[in-house]
């Protein structure tokens, strides 16, 4: 039989192998000195570990502090739970109102991009001016007004260009 690998001996020494596999390894041990030494070494390691105090005494004052803190945490928790049960519908309604107000406030800003004062880079300002012109042109299209564009420039191309500009702008702002 090929010798089991070292990690399997760890499981053997720790008693974590299923009985059938354990039996196989024990049969192997009977005829393999190297593996017997290996297994004995690991068992000695576990025995050495067992010389440590497993449940060291914690200072009584530390335990008492811990009990006090745990009781306080339990009290605070039950208070929060009680308040939540009583007022959860009020909180839910308030959350809906806040969300609605937030959406109403934010939405127009999203629809109307403007050049913000913190953009000081000249190159970036030029690109923003191009983008703004593109947006105005698209708005003109959507309003049914014919824009003054070159004959070979399709709307799709314009959109792609705008998207490209926006991507570049985001990357630069992020950077």
């Amino acid at each position, binding site marked *: 039989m090929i010798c089991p690998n070292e990690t399997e001996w760890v499981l053997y020494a720790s008693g974590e192998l299923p009985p059938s596999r354990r039996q196989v390894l024990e049969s192997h041990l009977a005829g393999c000195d190297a593996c017997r030494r290996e297994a004995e070494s*690991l068992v000695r390691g576990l025995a050495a*570990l067992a010389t440590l*105090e497993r449940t060291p005494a914690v200072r009584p004052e530390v335990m008492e502090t*811990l009990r006090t803190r*745990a009781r306080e945490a339990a009290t605070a928790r039950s208070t929060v739970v009680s308040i939540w049960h009583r007022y959860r519908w009020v909180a839910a309604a308030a959350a809906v109102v806040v969300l609605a107000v937030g959406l109403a406030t934010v939405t127009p800003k999203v629809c109307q991009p403007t050049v913000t004062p913190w953009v000081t880079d000249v190159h970036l300002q030029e690109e923003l001016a191009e983008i703004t012109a593109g947006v105005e042109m698209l708005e003109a299209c959507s309003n049914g007004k014919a824009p003054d564009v070159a004959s070979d420039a399709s709307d799709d191309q314009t959109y792609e260009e705008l998207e490209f500009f926006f991507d570049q702008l985001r990357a630069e702002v992020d950077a």
Partner: protein
Amino acid sequence: MTTGPTDPSSLEALLVTFAPRVYGLLFRLIGRADIAEDLMQETMLRAFRSLDTYHPEGKFRAWVFRIAVNLARDWIRRQPREPSVSIDEGDDPPVAASLRTVDPPDKGMTRREGSRRVEVAIARLSAADREVLLLRYYGDLAFKDIARTTGEPLGTVLARAHRALKKLGELLPEDEL
């Protein structure tokens, strides 16, 4: 009378069962009794706060020790790194040195004859190897649970345990089995 998970008797059972072992683990991981006491309290409070969601069939014990290990790792990570200097053979690494100089609350823990060499040997292990061995001993966790606790593959955990146990095994004479 109801006996929910947050009633006083459950709290006391939790503390008595886990606090000493968690403290033992943290003390061996960190090497400082005062810090181990603080982190043990934090571990127990965090566990206690989520008792409501505890199901007996779950690996609650593994979860408690995972909290402890994570707190210990965070604490160790926050410590300033000492300059890398070569140490003579026989010098103690920081954890071993602190075990030598700090008197833990339970003197039996480090002063007992016969375990002194084991303590130093454990302190000399790499942090990751030591973690596996101590989770096995103080947490009484199976290696597959230790793998989940440390976030390492089972094979890696077993290799760490093998290396660490071999080193400890060298401390005991062959006739002391």
